[in-house]
């Protein structure tokens, strides 16, 4: 009679437990070496699209969402592939990202920093978003970028033009494809010089927040380097709707150029008011009075109507560009939605593709591996010519467009015409440029 307590079942249990026990330290060691926030374990990966769905920039947010949906469709192998076909990197193959199907969740930034942070937090913590992207305001971009840095996810900024986003507020986990205030100034200055000469007196009206301040600083520096004199720079409340009391003194000031450092509703109203006051029909100092809007957006130009005709500004991209990549994107977007994409749509589409490509090249979703793949990445075929994602500040350097309000538009979308494609070299600045000083990228954060 055997008293042995060994049974087949007992052996299996014991060995399973022992195996698990022995493996336990290895699992933890392995986890601590590779774990990162929202590591996708199933057959899909979730991206978080954080755009203004309500509030004053809701139309831009809607266009961004359209572009994101198109990018997801293309990444998953749907549609005509858009700019995936023209992108210089051929890592993406239409099977999602690293073989995982791309899914997405959306959040509403409301163009408010606190609301944007809350929706980004919710997408990271509740929906498991591996990457956050979007936004239509620099205040929001800076706030969400900070959150993503803390949470350990990558932030691919949408429409944000303040120098601070990749300047004093830059973060290791944040990346910007869109251009910035310095680049606008550097691109516009030579065009303004050839059009209006070196002897000009400029009057600035500036939206009183981070983007307005950095844009004013950039344009002032660029135009003063030409020899222009800055007569006055007046800060206007962001909530202002009627700019007549700020515009009325302009003609009396001796200025012959008005620079409107305004965006969105502010730009629409200040430009409309300036034209109403007949500024464009006046002569000052023996010269025609001119108005400049350094940052243009087609959606905003539509709001200002006929007032944009002949007014110069800069933009990140325009649907009328004739390179193969832009044509592919316009065709893809236009066929799906029935109208051409805005610059906001273009930049977020690029950001989504750039993220997916970086993950594929890195072979990992780990934020630090993705950041490493993006840093110093040189690419082409996304509509802006040869582009560099600079490692030092995570800013893209590419050609900048100088545009003018079209005199004879052929359709409601045909509002701007490209007058100059300023080469990337002309808008590139050293990473330690004083306008971008005061912050550091810090260390990349993989999260927990």
């Amino acid at each position: 009679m055997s008293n042995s307590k060994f049974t087949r079942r007992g052996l299996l249990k014991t060995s399973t437990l022992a195996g698990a026990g022995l493996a336990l330290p290895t699992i933890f060691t392995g986890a601590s070496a590779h774990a990162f926030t929202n590591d996708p374990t199933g057959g899909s990966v979730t991206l978080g699209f954080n755009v203004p769905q309500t509030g004053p920039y809701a139309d831009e947010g809607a266009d961004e969402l359209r572009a994101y949906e198109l990018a997801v469709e293309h990444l998953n192998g749907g549609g005509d592939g858009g700019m995936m076909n023209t992108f210089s990197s051929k890592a993406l193959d239409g099977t999602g990202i690293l073989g995982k199907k791309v899914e997405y969740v959306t959040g509403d930034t409301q163009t408010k920093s606190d609301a944007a942070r809350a929706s980004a937090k919710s997408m990271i913590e509740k929906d498991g978003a591996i990457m956050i992207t979007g936004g239509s305001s620099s205040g929001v971009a800076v706030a969400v970028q900070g959150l993503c840095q803390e949470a350990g996810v990558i932030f691919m900024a949408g429409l944000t033009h303040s120098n601070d986003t990749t300047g004093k507020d830059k973060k290791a986990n944040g990346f910007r494809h869109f251009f910035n205030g310095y680049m606008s100034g550097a691109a516009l200055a030579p065009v303004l010089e050839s059009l209006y000469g070196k002897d000009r007196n400029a009057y600035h009206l500036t939206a009183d927040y981070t983007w307005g301040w950095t844009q004013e600083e950039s344009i002032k520096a660029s135009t003063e380097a030409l020899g222009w004199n800055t007569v006055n720079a007046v800060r206007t409340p962001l909530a202002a709707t009627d700019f007549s009391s700020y515009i009325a003194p302009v003609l009396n000031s001796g200025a012959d150029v008005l620079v409107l450092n305004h965006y969105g509703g502010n730009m629409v109203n200040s430009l409309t008011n300036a034209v109403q006051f007949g500024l464009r029909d006046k002569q000052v100092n023996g010269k025609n009075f001119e108005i400049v809007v350094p940052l243009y957006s087609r959606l905003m130009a539509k709001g200002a109507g006929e007032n944009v005709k002949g007014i110069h500004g800069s933009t990140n991209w325009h649907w009328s560009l004739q390179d193969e990549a832009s044509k592919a994107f316009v065709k893809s977007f236009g066929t799906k939605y029935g109208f051409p994409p805005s610059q906001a749509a273009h930049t977020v589409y690029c950001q989504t593709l750039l993220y997916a490509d970086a993950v594929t090249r890195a072979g990992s979703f780990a934020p630090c591996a993705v950041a490493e793949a993006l840093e110093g990445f040189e690419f082409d075929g996304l509509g802006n010519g040869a582009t560099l994602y600079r490692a030092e500040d995570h800013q893209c350097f590419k050609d900048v467009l100088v545009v003018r309000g079209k005199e004879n538009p052929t359709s409601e979308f045909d509002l701007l015409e490209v007058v100059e494609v300023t080469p990337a070299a002309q808008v590139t600045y050293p990473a330690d440029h004083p306008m971008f000083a005061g912050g550091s990228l810090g260390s990349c954060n993989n999260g927990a």
Partner: protein
Amino acid sequence: MDAILLQILNGLDKGSAYALIALGLTLIFGTLGVVNFAHGALFMIGAFCAVTLSKILNASYEVIDETKADFLGNPLKVKLTYVESWFGPETGAAIIDWAVPLAILFSIPIMIAIGFIMERGLIKHFYKRPHADQILVTFGLAIVLQEVIKAIYGANPIPTGAPAVFRGSFDFGVLLGYEANAIIYPYWRMVYFAFSALIIGGVFAFLQFTTFGMVVRAGMADRETVELLGINIDRRFTIMFGVAAAVAGLAGVMYAPINSPNYHMGMDFLVLSFVVVVVGGMGSLPGAVLAGFMLGILESFASMNEVKNIFPGIDQIIIYLVAIIIILTRPRGLMGRKGVMED
């Protein structure tokens, strides 16, 4: 001196809008005792009446132009308006050009109907409730209305131009012996000021010189006595709600060319107009008009560089600063009746 004249002129058109909205607000408070926070939304709907008529007049059909291509390279679809094809290019273009003035006629029945529905459908249920409840429900209504407008027209501003004859500006400086360009003022803003004066005068004349107006004024002074005389004052007050809605709507229609209408414009004006009513005196019609123009002009002066250099940011707080001083020193407002909102 020219800078001062310039800011007075600027303040007049801003004050015109404040005065028109505040006039309606205080009219409703004086008659129905309701603090209507949806009044700014009525101003916004008025502006969108102008947008709507402009869109109706610009309704078009498409003709394929084989010689041109659209953004996808397909033959361009050229839009031709029905109005121009019906009335000929010149007359049609003139009708479209005058969309905003025509919208005055278009908006009056719409605004009166909206005012009537608003009052009968929702606000009348809150007459006996505290002011806080009235503010909450009307503020909620304002949010609903602006979201409806945003759902229909989008979030971006929609340019709605003044007739071509009123574009450009008038050089007051030359007229007054100053240098050219010293005091310039857009024609449409002059029209807006004149229009506001006409509407304000019309409302006062209506209340002062008609039997209906006399009954309304009597009801505002002593509602119970008027009711004891067998007069249905509620019906008249409902009509006055419609009139107030029409006044706000007209203010909005004519404001459309000054700043491109957007769904949020009502909220931008509402808070300031409410301050105007409080400064003028709750329920006081002359007070609302006086305070509207006064605060409009003060706001313009506060935007002057010379003032901002001494008091940075004063342009953002001047109206509230004046309101605080008035409320502290004269709680009933500039022309408010004794006892109203003083406790």
